[in-house]
């Protein structure tokens, strides 16, 4: 096994497990080196033992700091020198030094009196310290710990030959050192002799004493941080860096993982919060909609309730009003009241009232006028029958009249550019039979009591009687076109018959539907006369057709005359 490795394992056992035997082994393995070095420096066995004790005590305290690659002999040698110097600094040391110096001065003065290596001994440690550590260690192992060249090579991990060469080289460097200090005769052999001469073996007693003393002050086995540090101290830099990195990375990694987890949780809560907010917003929107809807519905219910209350109230008021109005109208001492919309009329005066009135009860094309409906007290079915009878009659009369209408020429005068006259000859006896039949039907519908109301109108004085209206007596309608001061065509008409009428207007009102220049008014052309019953609708229609032709001819093509 490698010497260094062996030392390291012994120290490990001592520091980790408190194995004192392992430390004792270390002491035994290197006591000669330490004791010899100390003795050489302090030149007193007792003092050397004390120095050795101090050195190994220091080793016991600092054992945990050693790494496998550290050279324990080298460290022990240096420490021994330091401890020796320390000791020498004391009083006794001083005296010794003085005495030694005197002795050395004498020796140097007479080098021939003593073997040559003796002169080199005082400078031996200085010379060893001047060497590189490997060279120094090789010499220490070879000469002070009495290792074979093979062991020395093993300590360095090299072959025996290489160890031999290294030892030889170190000895040469020592010789060179001595020469440099004035020892001209110093050689490798002298250096070797000096080393061999100064090698000392400590006695078993010394060994036991040193081991005991060192163990007494040695710390107990290292545990916890101490052990950890001890382990750390025993590791290489790469190992140390790896362990520390591992130690540093693990908590950082753990913390980063925690951070990631916290971040994820924060995100999750954020997502949930957003979802809840969205849901809340949606619910709020729905609530607003529902509130608005409820508001409208409440309003509707309130309105409906109010309407129902009003309806009930108005129904009650209406009933009261009807009762009051009935009472007023049916009272024996009936009086006119301004607040009633109705009046009571004795049936006996109705014929006279009808005769004195200014309007006929019926009109084309078969209408019973509202006043007549009230005066006659018609039921809906009576009114329907009556109007159906009138419709049939007027339709029949119009049909016959349309056949008989003829057109005659009119002389042109003044600004008149076109003129014609439509004549309705009247149906005479032809229609009288139809009218009588219709009146008989009316008589049947109304009955004897109400017939006088119609009869009164038939015999009414004046130019237009109900009879003439019903029979459509002779009528004529002249129409013409003339130009005004600006040259614009206008129309005019005169109606002759039971009632005379005349008028005129713009010819453009007779332009076809959709013509941009068409003006309003053609629908009203003699419409009142037709409704009043003194103009046949067929006659009006013929005249309107003639006017439409004139308008198309004179105002057509975009309205350009």
């Amino acid at each position, binding site marked *: 096994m490698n010497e260094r490795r062996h030392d390291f394992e012994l120290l490990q056992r001592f520091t980790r497990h408190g194995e004192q035997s392992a430390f004792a082994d270390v002491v035994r393995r290197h006591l000669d080196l330490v004791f010899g070095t100390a003795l050489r420096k302090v030149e007193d066995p007792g003092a050397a033992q004390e120095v050795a004790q101090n050195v190994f005590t220091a080793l016991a305290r600092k054992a945990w700091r050693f790494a496998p690659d550290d050279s324990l002999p080298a460290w022990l040698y240096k420490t021994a020198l330091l401890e020796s110097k320390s000791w020498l600094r004391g009083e006794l040391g001083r005296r010794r030094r003085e005495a030694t110096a005197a002795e050395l001065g004498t020796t140097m003065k007479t080098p021939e009196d003593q073997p040559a290596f003796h002169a080199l001994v005082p400078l031996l440690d200085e010379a060893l310290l001047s060497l590189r550590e490997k060279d120094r260690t090789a010499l220490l192992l070879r000469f002070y710990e009495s290792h074979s060249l093979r062991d020395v090579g093993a300590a360095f991990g090299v072959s025996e030959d290489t160890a031999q060469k290294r030892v030889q080289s170190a000895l040469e460097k020592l010789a060179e050192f001595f020469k440099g200090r004035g020892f001209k005769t110093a050689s490798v052999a002298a250096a070797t002799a000096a080393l061999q001469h100064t090698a000392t073996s400590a006695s078993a007693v010394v060994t036991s004493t040193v081991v005991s003393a060192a163990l007494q002050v040695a710390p107990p086995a290292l545990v916890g941080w101490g052990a950890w540090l001890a382990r750390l101290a025993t590791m290489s830099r790469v190992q140390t860096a790896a362990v520390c990195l591992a130690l540093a990375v693990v908590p950082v990694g753990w*913390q980063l993982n925690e951070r990631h987890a916290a971040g994820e*949780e924060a995100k999750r809560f954020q997502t949930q919060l957003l979802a809840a907010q969205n849901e809340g917003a949606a619910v709020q929107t729905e609530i607003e909609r529902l509130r608005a809807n409820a508001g409208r519905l409440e309003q509707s219910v309130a309105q409906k309730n109010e309407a129902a209350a009003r*309806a009930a109230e108005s129904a009650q008021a209406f009933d009261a009003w009807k009762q009051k109005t009935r009472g007023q109208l049916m009272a024996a001492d009936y009086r006119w009241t301004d607040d009633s919309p*109705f009046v009571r009329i004795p049936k006996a005066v109705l014929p006279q009232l009808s005769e004195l009135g200014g309007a006929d009860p019926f009109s084309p094309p078969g209408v019973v006028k509202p006043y007549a409906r009230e*005066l006659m007290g018609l039921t809906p079915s009576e009114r329907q029958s009556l109007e159906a009878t009138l419709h049939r009659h007027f339709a029949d009369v119009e049909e016959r009249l349309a056949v008989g209408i003829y057109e005659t020429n009119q002389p042109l005068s003044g600004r008149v550019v076109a003129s014609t006259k439509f004549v309705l000859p009247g149906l005479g006896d032809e229609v009288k039979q139809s009218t009588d039949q219709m009146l008989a039907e009316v008589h049947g519908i109304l009955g004897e009591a109400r017939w006088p109301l119609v009869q009164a109108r038939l015999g009414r004085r004046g130019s237009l009687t109900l009879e003439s209206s019903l029979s459509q007596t002779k009528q004529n309608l002249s129409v013409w076109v003339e130009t005004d001061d600006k040259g614009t065509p206008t129309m005019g008409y005169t109606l002759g018959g039971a009632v005379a009428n005349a008028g005129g207007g713009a010819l453009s009102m007779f332009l076809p539907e959709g013509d941009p220049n068409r003006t309003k008014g053609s629908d009203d052309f003699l419409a009142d006369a037709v409704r009043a019953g003194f103009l046949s609708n067929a006659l009006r229609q013929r005249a309107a057709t003639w006017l439409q032709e004139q308008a198309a001819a004179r105002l057509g093509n975009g309205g350009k005359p």
Partner: protein
Amino acid sequence: MNKILLAVAILCAGAGGFLTARQSTTQFEHEANVTREAWLTQTQLVAAAQSDQAGLIEHVRELKQTLKQTQALGENAVWSALQTNGARQFTPELREQLLEELGFNWQSSEEFIMVSKQTLREIQMSAIEGGKLTDVAATVLAMTPEERGQVEAAVQRVQTDFKDWVLAHAERSDPKDDVIAHYSLPDNTIMRQSISNNFVTGIFAALGRERTELIMPSTRNWMISPLGLGLGKYPTTLIIRRYVSGNEQRLNVQVVNSIMTPNQSGGDIYPIDLLQHSFPSAFLPLFPNGWADIAKREGFELPKEFQEKYPPP
């Protein structure tokens, strides 16, 4: 020693990294806690809102149910219209509905028929005939004897007032050349307004506003014609002339207003044969029997056709 420094450096760096990561973790944890608290609060709010929503849904459902169950009772249209407009603006259909509601038709009474006042307006009943209030008008308007007496007195008074004014203001010119009669009445605007106002006031005092409005159109017509109050505003002249038609001597009449132009009515633009001309009513107070009285007064003979057409009573 170098190893220790290396270890310390790495461990310090690790510690720094750890502390930084720890601080960041704490910050994230804090954010997560805050967000969690906000989420919990929001969740509670949502739950409360959902509870409100459920309540509202139920409320709306109940309201719809209530609305569905509540009968749609509308105000009676006839009554509503009656309240708003009175019976004046009633359409014929509404009037008939109202009469139906009241239960009035031809059969509901042997003696009477109930009609709306609007119908009376539409009939345009003539209230005065022959200078007297008609029985029909008095009956229809349900005049009491006192009311009728007041109205008749008013009618009589307006005729008397007008006659007195005509008698007082008519002017006669002597016949000259072909003119055999020439009478003039001055502008009667003030008199007409005065008489008309007195008449309306009298009627109004007797019958009130509504019945006065009902008979006023026909009485206004009566005052214009045949009473003759219409020829006012300008002096009115009656001229009768002789003229020859073929070998026959004939009479023509022209009633003119002083500013008469061809575009104005109210008089004759050209003379009209007497046989075709009705006697101007404005001069009736002077000559109650018309053409016969004026011929007697001025000493000319009416044409034979006239005497045949209107023989003396």
